């Protein structure tokens, strides 16, 4: 029996320690790359032809396509370089990709033979601290024709792809889900390469050719640094593209592909109706001026990993639960004093904790692990996210891992779910880890069920919700896979801006009520736990975070708007032959 299988990677992308390749190592690896590989036969649309591409504020490129695999290029009238290339056609477009031998530079050209326009992606390695990260500069221009007037039109940046999503199947069998919820970033879920467990994000470019044809590119910044670029036809649902970079084994990936797509829906975009995204305005930040510059979220640059000793010192110095008001809780639910004066036990299945509680007031409680004698006092905060449901959290003082718990008490069903967080993973000492427990409430007057429990769900997967935490602080959550989600910060125009992803869990408490948690892994290490009420479109929640300023457990509260959904849940079930 031949058993097809998914080759799940030993580590997901955010855990891979990609080699910091030197420029010399990159030069050696590029030296053997004459031209990109491709499963599909290359186009000979340009074979035997010459093109002169004039770009605005960029180089002039004079090409002689000697065959369908060899070209020569002269930049700005300089001496000609000879290179191998690949070309694939899509409607009136030809996508051409080549490297410049002896350099770490290459070009991806999108040539519009109908309108005599061109978009040039100049790409290069060794242009950033992490040399393997592909850099790019986009130039818009035209094809110079003898005696002809230069066209006035240009391809241009666009927001017309914002909110769309596609399933792509490349000619080499690679399948991905690609979501475009931002004008600066995109999500990609590698169904084939990584098994489709987590979504990841990369800075992205969106270029409009015409109403049907677009160009998309992304670079897997903070990961392998690989660039994926393709032209796509929204009506024919076809793509032609190129992938350039170094994989986890540091092998050069340089291939072109064609593919077929499947639209997965459209979520809302929020910029003014007459904003077509031709310019991306970055608030107070100066517009990118240096070649290749773009906004890139580099979480480990701004949140350096801490050592175990640094964590212990920081926690000893400052450890606080529900201290100063946070902008993340500007729109919080009112605190609940429902638990004040009550005593109960939560008992979790499968060897989970059994915790006894005495709630002294609306802010103070005593707890102890069942079977122990010592009661410990903690500050807590509670909310009532739905009738009969109380959500509260507190630190577990005295825990060597500095644990905290966020607990749902579902009094109508005598059920409880608990997200237990602690500090330290095999990767980062200040990174939170978590375990979700399901169990019951024991208290006088309640009889708990024997079998029924809250349970993990994928009901939210594909949905997008905006969350307004306080003035000036709104994000959008896209629930991208059953095990991860992404968050997006809006630009001043309210277009989607920077984006990042993290592992997540979704628990169904009852219809339209979910317990959701996420980990900002390989990032700032935060564990966030929310109860989301889709009827009120309001959440309440807890952030558990350790940084250089210490350990904190703080309130989160925001109001939601429905931003739509992607039809992606069907891609995440167990595979069958």
């Amino acid at each position, binding site marked *: 029996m031949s058993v097809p299988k998914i080759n799940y990677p030993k580590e997901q992308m955010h855990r891979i320690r990609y080699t910091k390749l030197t420029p010399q190592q990159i030069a050696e690896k590029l030296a053997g790359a004459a031209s990109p590989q491709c499963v599909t036969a290359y186009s000979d649309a340009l074979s035997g032809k010459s093109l002169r591409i004039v770009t605005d504020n960029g180089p002039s490129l004079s090409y002689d396509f000697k065959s369908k695999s060899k070209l020569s290029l002269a930049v700005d009238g300089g001496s000609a370089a000879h290179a191998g290339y690949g070309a694939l056609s899509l409607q009136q477009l030809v996508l051409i990709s080549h490297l410049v031998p002896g350099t770490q530079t290459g070009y991806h050209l999108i040539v519009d033979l109908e309108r005599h326009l061109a978009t040039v992606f100049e790409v290069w390695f060794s242009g950033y601290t992490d040399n393997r990260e592909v850099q790019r500069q986009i130039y818009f221009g035209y094809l110079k024709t003898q005696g002809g007037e230069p066209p006035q039109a240009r391809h241009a940046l666009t927001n017309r792809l914002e909110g769309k999503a596609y399933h792509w199947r490349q000619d080499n069998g690679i399948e991905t889900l690609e979501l475009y919820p931002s004008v600066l970033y995109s999500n990609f879920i590698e169904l084939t390469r990584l098994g489709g467990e987590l979504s990841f994000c990369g800075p992205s470019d969106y270029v409009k050719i015409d109403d049907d044809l677009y160009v998309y590119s992304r670079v897997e910044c903070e990961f392998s640094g690989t660039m994926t670029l393709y032209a796509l036809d929204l009506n024919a649902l076809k793509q032609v593209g190129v992938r350039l970079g170094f994989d986890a084994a540091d092998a050069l990936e340089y291939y072109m592909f064609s593919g077929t797509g499947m639209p997965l829906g459209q979520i809302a975009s929020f910029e003014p109706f007459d904003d077509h995204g031709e310019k991306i305005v970055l608030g107070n*930040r100066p517009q990118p001026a240096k070649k290749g510059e773009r906004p890139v979220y580099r*979480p480990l640059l701004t*949140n350096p990993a801490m050592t175990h000793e640094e964590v212990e010192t920081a926690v000893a110095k400052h450890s606080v639960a529900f201290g100063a008001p946070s*902008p993340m809780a500007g729109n919080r639910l009112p605190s609940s004093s429902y638990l004040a004066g009550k005593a109960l036990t939560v008992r979790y299945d499968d060897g989970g904790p059994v915790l006894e509680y005495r709630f002294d007031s609306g802010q103070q409680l005593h707890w102890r692990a069942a079977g122990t004698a010592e009661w410990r006092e903690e500050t807590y905060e509670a909310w009532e996210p739905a009738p009969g449901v109380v959500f509260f959290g507190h630190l577990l003082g005295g825990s060597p891992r500095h644990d905290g718990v966020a607990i749902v008490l579902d009094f109508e069903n005598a059920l409880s779910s608990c997200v237990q967080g602690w500090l330290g993973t095999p990767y980062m000492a200040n990174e939170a880890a978590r375990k979700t427990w399901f169990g019951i409430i024991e208290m006088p007057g309640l009889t708990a069920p024997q079998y029924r429990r809250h349970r993990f769900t994928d009901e939210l997967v594909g949905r997008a919700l905006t969350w307004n935490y306080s003035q*000036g*602080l709104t994000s959008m959550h896209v629930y991208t896979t059953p095990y991860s989600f992404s968050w997006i*910060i809006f630009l001043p125009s*309210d277009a989607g801006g920077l984006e990042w992803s993290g592992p997540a869990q979704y628990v169904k408490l009852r219809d339209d009520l979910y317990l959701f948690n996420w980990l900002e892994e390989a990032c700032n290490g935060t564990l966030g736990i929310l109860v989301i009420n889709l009827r009120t479109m309001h959440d309440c929640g807890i952030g558990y975070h350790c940084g250089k300023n210490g350990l904190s457990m703080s309130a989160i509260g925001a109001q939601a708007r429905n931003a739509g959904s992607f039809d992606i849940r069907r891609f995440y079930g167990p595979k069958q032959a």
Partner: protein
Amino acid sequence: MKTRSIPSRRAFLYRAGASLTGSLAVVAGSAAAESADPLAAQARTGASEEAHSPRTLHRAYANYLNAGTFDLLLNLFSSDAEVRLHGGVFAGRDEGIRRLYVGHSRQTLRPEPVHELLLEHPLRDHALVLATDAATAAARFHCLVRSRAALVQDLPLLEMARQQGQSSVEWWEAGCFENTYVLTAGRWQIAELRYRTLGNCEALVPHARGKPDFVPGFSMLYPRDPFGPDRLDRQSA
């Protein structure tokens, strides 16, 4: 106190100034006729030209506030002046007022470009009244204030926002100064500066993310707050 109105009230439709503590503030009045009087030029002049009248004094206040030249701004106040702003009373030019402008504002403002906008806007009801001895005066100046409060918290979402140029919350607000002035040795000085917010102007900046209450008023007194006020003032909160 007998008073008389200054007849050329229109003159006071020009620039007015305001500050919001904990925030950046840029000021615009209806200023079409003032193009020949660039603020930058005034900023370079000494105090003598500013002291011709409460009107020029107030324009100088706006000038220095916009330019962030707080040391020069202090010279506009009398030694025993008070500033009532954002829920706090700051007493004494060289103590409380210096603490407010040179300490608090300089500490909390960020070195970010703030683009001044001048708007044609029908600001009315300005008034200036002089006492009969012509040695004191009271004035009311309406103004539009573009405010920007830095987002300084250490939060992951805010860090992302900062990286894409959203390091602050901005809004426009309508404000009102109700000031008193004193003539000392032939020179007008501000004896008391009261600023209060009249509301935000959402129509002017439809995508403004903040409102005038974004920055909480002062709640802690000096010296517990090293830049705090001497007293609290609910009326200016």
